[in-house]
């Protein structure tokens, strides 16, 4: 199912709705999009515009109501539960706004949690080094700062050398300086291991670090613009 060069994801007429009858909420209304291998795609838009729903479908956590969402030749819309689990295990790295670290495992153990079930992982220490965390790896999440926790979460996401990295507002809960560090980590990984990275944000300025920016509104894609001049995270204004 590993897609060859070119598109990683292909979306066609992708729809997602919740509820029935007059109470139906249309979260996604017929999206068309191709996402290329190795690109850093920023999803921008207000709350409820469908960004997270799309990310969840691409991550195999949710299924579309209609349309197609393909990862290579794998149809995420029709794959069964075990196939989706296998898909997440082999190809997807997640980074959440609230980190979702396992509180009872240390930083390093949180990373090992993934390296132990992956086919060709890097070493947990390497993953932690890539996000700039070489100390405090034996600390528990409660003993780490928000930025450190998020970097552990990123290390955990990349340790398996995922095909795609899905980040849902990874800097949403962080201050500027920490947020910059986190974005730098993401960028660094995107560049060094070529992971296709999807990044959700509210912050229009953050969009400037991506290859392309997808503007969402009301469950639809308004525009897709390519960044001719990408900026470094340190230049992003918050």
């Amino acid at each position, binding site marked *: 199912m590993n897609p060859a060069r070119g598109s990683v994801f292909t979306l066609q007429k992708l729809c997602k709705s919740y509820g029935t009858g007059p109470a139906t909420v249309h979260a996604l209304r017929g999206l068309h999009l191709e996402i290329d291998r190795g690109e850093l795609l920023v999803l921008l838009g207000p709350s409820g515009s469908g960004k997270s729903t799309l990310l*969840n479908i691409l991550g195999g956590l949710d299924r579309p109501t209609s349309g197609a969402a393909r990862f290579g030749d794998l149809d995420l819309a029709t794959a069964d539960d075990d196939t989706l689990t296998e898909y997440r295990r082999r190809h997807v790295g997640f980074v959440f706004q609230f980190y*979702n*670290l396992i509180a009872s495992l*240390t930083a390093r153990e949180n990373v090992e*949690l*993934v390296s132990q079930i992956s086919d060709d992982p890097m070493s947990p220490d390497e993953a932690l080094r890539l996000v700039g965390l070489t100390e405090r790896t034996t600390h*528990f999440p*409660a003993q780490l700062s928000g930025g450190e926790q998020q970097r552990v979460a990123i290390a*955990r996401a990349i340790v398996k050398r995922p095909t795609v990295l899905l980040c849902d507002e990874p800097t949403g809960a962080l201050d500027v300086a920490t947020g910059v560090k986190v974005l730098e980590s993401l960028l660094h990984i995107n560049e060094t291991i070529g992971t296709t990275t999807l990044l959700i944000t509210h912050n229009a300025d953050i969009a400037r670090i991506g290859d392309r920016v997808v503007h969402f509104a009301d469950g639809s894609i308004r525009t897709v613009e390519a960044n001719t001049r990408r900026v470094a995270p340190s230049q992003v204004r918050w």
Partner: protein
Amino acid sequence: MKPLTRKLFRDLRRLRLQAIAAGIVLGCGIAIFVMSIGTYGSLESARDNYYREARMADLATSLVRAPEGIAASLALIPGVSAIETRAAGFGLINLPQVDEPVTAQLLSLPADRRPLVNDLSLREGRWPESNRANEALVNEAFAAAHGIKPGDHISILIRGERRQLTAVGIASSPEFVFVVAPGSILPEPDRFGILWMNRDTLMRALDLEGAFNDVVIRVASEADRPRVIAALDERLGRYGSRGVYGQDRMLSARYLTDELSQLKTLASVLPPIFLLVAMFLIHSVLSRLVGMEKSNIGLLKSFGYRNWDIGWHYAQFSLVFSVIGVVFGIFLGNLIGTYMTGVYREVYHFPILDFQAGLSTYLGATAVGVIAGLLGAVGAVREATRLAPIVALSPPTPTAFRRLNSWVERRAKSLSLRWRMVVRRLLHFPRRSAMTVIGIALALALLIMSEHFPIAVNRLIDLNFGTAQRMHATLTLSEQRSDIVLREIARLPGVILVEPVRVADVFFSHEHRHEREAIIGLPRGAALNRLVESNRDVVEPAEKGLTLSTSLARKLGVRVGDQIRVQATDGPRALVEVKVSRIVSPFLGGSAYMDQAELGRLLREPSRVGGAHVIIDSTQRQALNERLKQIPAIVGVAYTDNFQIALEKLFREGVGFFSNMFLFFSLSMAAGVAFSAARITIGEQERDLATLRVLGYKRRSISMLPLGEMTVLLVLAIPTGLLLGAALSNWMMHQFETDLFSFPLIFDSRAYARSALFVAAAVLAATFWARQSIDRMQLVAALKAHE
């Protein structure tokens, strides 16, 4: 409806399974409370009402022969409110449908009036006419056992003379609520009957014209009882009185008292265990709820809700759990109590015995349930009221796990990551882990205790019939006779081996303590009736001096080597000083033993016997029975096998039901604790579990987290429960011991293993059930949810 009330109902709907689990455990405690207190009250009030209405004797004695003329003077003793003199004796009933001769206790009825003491209640038929010599009343249990109806004839042998009596009525007496033949410990209604006969007829038959040999007395409530007894003893002593005694030595009354005290033990020991576990469950559920709703609570407070509103909101949850427990407990308690009372009705013959728990019991049960619920809620309510409003605005923080001590961490390194999670959680919440272990262990302990009881009884029966009492039958003589009679007994058809029975009823005194007990005389090298200790050792009484049971020695405050005063209550009434030579712990039967020859010498009645234990050729049993029915000197024939069957039947009826009841209670407790613990651990780790799923772990492999946690707790709970069970069982059996028997200390590994298996199955089943929520988990929603 207020918003908080609406929230309460919605949350309760979500927590309904845990509410039911806590309610059931609480309900089990309340059920035992209602059942035992209700049964206790029903039995006690049935006894007190019956004793009062039928004027149950407070005092009694039997004597050799006293002239009727002294009755009036006895009635004048200050404190005596009523007196009834009687003729009393034994006879052998010959029932055509029964092979063996059946013993009857014979008691005279006053002419032309009802008894002033120990009045009878007529169940069927009519009272005997005083001018009809051979009319009699039969006790209810015996009549029922043999289908005797008013108008039936009964052939009876009294002192060698055969009489035809007519049963004109069926009656019951407060004196025989528990009908047990003298010397026996079990009711055998088909082998022992009571006949109330025309006074003149019985007096003539017993050679007692113008005299009496039995007296029953009622004492005014304000009277000085010891003084009344002393006055009676003084007047009756010269007529061969065996000493006036109170209800504590009247067999039926004594059994009732023992039963009541056992019910009291049940009521005081078991409900607290269940209530404690229920409190813990309520505490866990509510603490988890408050923990989950911290930000909501902060928010409510920031809106202006007072601490009291918030506290009351969470206390209401516990009230709902209590209501579930109380309703379920009262319902179940009534059901069990009604059944138990039915069992008691078979054994204790009261005119009316119905299960009535009474309003106070229900109010008590409700109060106990509500208090247990509120106490369970205290921790959570306190936490909720103490939370600062700012909590609502703070970002979520992960649970603060810390490194454990280095030894544990080194060991943890060898574990897989998921097992590390399990171990760290268990050690991070030590109190909760410990409470879960204790809850499961208590359930196991209860189950072991309930299994222990029938096993102990069976061991008792085995030990008794296998080691101690090996006779095929015991023959009782109408009075003590010379041991020449043994030679005649040996000549009876089928008799292979004969051993004398010698029992002396005496008063023991040591310093200021007095006890009335029997000394059992055992022949040297006895083969049929042997003294067996609780540890199963067969021991011989000391050659010289007295051998006492530990309980009697304790009551008298004596040790080996002490001198003790012994006063016989019959025969020449010897008063002697004897040395205590040995103290033993017999598991069943008497309290004092002596070498038989030594006992005879001591009481100045050598070579006297009261009966004989025999071994018979079973093929000759019929012939022996035929012959025994003709021998006037023998008033009792007790076959060991019949006794054994009666014993087994009695225990089957009571114990079978009890075992099932306890199985239900224990498994409910184990499952309730496990379900609640598993739900909480899954609930708390919902986000972790969802994260693991997102990271690519399969359902089966993340289910290992709650299952692993419960398995570790179970593994800790089982040995704890086994030890607790062994201790609780032996303590409980000790509580159930009476002067008549003590239980051997036992350890039945199979029963322990079975109990552990049952509890483990209940815990795992409950955990698997709780685990289902992992299958239903919505990944996206679970990831968003945060503490």
